[in-house]
């Protein structure tokens, strides 16, 4: 089994201190159902620090104007902020070329952009799209739609019993020479597994295919360098990484983006418009029709500043520490079934589990009554649920501001579940 592409945790002495950052997150300081809130639904959406809230507020208070249009001072400022944010994302993802960064509404729109623009231009009947069983629906359904339109066939890598992708069949799948694109998640939202993306990229490239990496749960929780990863497309989402909702990013290799047709038409993305045709703007604007989410882009850059200051390696190490503490405690509870890799080193901050006799929704309701917020359901990953023969799991997901005491509150809440359902 390939080692994870994410570097090992930082030394213990450099541990992130969550207490030192909690003051930055106003939403965490409230009571829910009479108890201090314990927010463990970070894989769904992360909370937003004051630095990011201020960036949004300051943008609208001081600089708000449309970008690339006005010849006035505010438009210059908003354009600088917007393009500066793009350069910031480029640095975060490890590319020098800011034109390879396309702003989107989120990871879902970024995947749809690639599926429709690249997919419809390159896929034909008999071609294959390689997916995996662990994907979020956002990295399945766009490909199903494109497969239906082009006649391409969907192939799948499957999960082993420990929530890790089985790579053995990959060579055989690729040997047919028909896989034109593979779409694989960096980190599983349902299981927390860090997937062996670099190895998949290497094999698919050798077979002549390109690779999209769904980084909605990757870039938020660990360092990412697209050059080292070797992928062709990488997508991520602002609200999973201390930024606001409604903003996300597509990174693509310049030579691929340049030959791809636009995804949506409108203002901003054109060079010249005639009555019956138009020509397209250069990258990145070719893919950014309409007035973009300028404040969202500015805020996402502020979120990256925040994460950079804490250190992505330390954030991952902290999450793995919390996962380890949670797994140790849950293994002691009779009737608990754990999903995903047993070794915390192979996962980011997600723990998915079920309890005998208590449905995940009931677990979530009882925890909520004690102020502990988790997710229960299929996590938009029904193929994962089907693989393990369950309809739903309970999922606790951690981020940089979660503490050991909060893990203990989760565990105490599960004792209440047992008391009622045991």
């Amino acid at each position: 089994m390939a080692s994870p592409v994410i570097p090992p945790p930082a030394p213990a002495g450099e541990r992130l201190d969550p207490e030192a950052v909690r003051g930055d997150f106003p939403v965490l300081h409230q009571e829910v159902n009479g108890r201090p809130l314990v927010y463990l639904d970070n894989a769904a959406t992360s909370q937003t620090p004051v630095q990011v809230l201020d960036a949004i507020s300051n943008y609208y208070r001081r600089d708000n104007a449309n970008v690339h249009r006005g010849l006035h001072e505010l438009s210059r400022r908003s354009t600088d902020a917007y393009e500066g944010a793009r350069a910031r994302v480029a640095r975060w993802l490890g590319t020098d070329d800011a034109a390879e960064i396309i702003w989107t509404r989120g990871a879902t729109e970024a995947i749809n952009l690639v599926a429709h623009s690249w997919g419809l231009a390159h896929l034909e009947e008999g071609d294959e799209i390689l997916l995996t069983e662990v994907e979020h629906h956002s990295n399945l359904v766009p490909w199903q739609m494109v497969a239906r339109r082009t006649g391409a066939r969907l192939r799948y890598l499957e999960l082993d019993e420990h929530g890790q992708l089985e790579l053995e069949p990959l060579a055989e799948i690729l040997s047919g020479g028909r896989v034109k694109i593979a779409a694989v998640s960096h980190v599983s939202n349902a299981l927390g597994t860090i997937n062996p993306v670099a190895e998949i990229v290497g094999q698919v490239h050798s077979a002549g295919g390109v690779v999209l990496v769904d980084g909605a749960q990757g870039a938020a929780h660990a360092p990412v360098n697209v050059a080292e990863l070797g992928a062709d497309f990488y997508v991520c989402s602002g609200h999973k990484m201390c930024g606001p909702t409604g903003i996300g990013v597509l990174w693509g290799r310049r030579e691929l983006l340049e030959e791809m047709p636009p995804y949506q038409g409108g203002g901003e993305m054109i060079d010249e418009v005639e009555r019956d045709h138009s020509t397209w703007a250069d990258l990145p604007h070719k893919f950014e029709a309409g007035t973009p989410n300028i404040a969202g882009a500015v805020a996402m850059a502020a979120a990256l500043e925040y994460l950079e200051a804490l250190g992505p390696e330390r954030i991952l190490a902290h999450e793995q520490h919390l996962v380890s503490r949670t797994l140790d405690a849950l293994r002691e509870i009779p009737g608990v079934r754990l999903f995903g890799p047993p070794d915390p080193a192979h996962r980011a901050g997600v723990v998915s589990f079920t309890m005998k006799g208590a449905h995940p929704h009931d677990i979530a309701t009882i925890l909520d009554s004690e102020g502990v917020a988790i997710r229960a359901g299929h996590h938009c990953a029904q193929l994962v649920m089907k693989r393990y023969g369950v309809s739903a799991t309970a999922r606790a997901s951690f981020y940089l501001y979660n503490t050991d005491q909060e893990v203990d509150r989760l565990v105490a809440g599960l004792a209440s579940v047992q008391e009622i359902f045991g």
Partner: protein
Amino acid sequence: MIDRSTPPMKSLYQQLILDHYRNPRNRGELDDRTVEIHMRNPTCGDEIKLQLRIEDDRIADLKFLGDGCSISQASVSMMTTILKGRSLDDAHQVSRRFTEMMHGDEDAARDSELGNLRTLAGVAKFPVRIKCALLGFDALQEAMKKSRGEHDHPTESER
């Protein structure tokens, strides 16, 4: 063992509800059914297959299969015990009163027509769980609607 559970949890998860969850009544397939509805809540994955034998505007028999939380499964189990042998008019009335109870109507929560279903009154205080409690009744409504159109013919699953 200290009692960690808060009082609202005790009122939500009453013993009778847990009993119906663990030992559902009228669970299984109804061979001589006249109508069948498969209903799923796509946001949470709860699902119910409800089968009825309707004769002379009465629910002569009904059974269900399902997968989901204690609230959705206990609610449909209790529903089957109350509606077996009742007229379609009665079924509509019970369904209407139960829905009213879920929306906080205290008169409905005291209505003896609802029988054991009244133990689910506490769900009204948990807005995100109301749809769980209503899943079985949603299936019932669909089944009665479908039956009006295709009364004499056994029907296959929706899916």
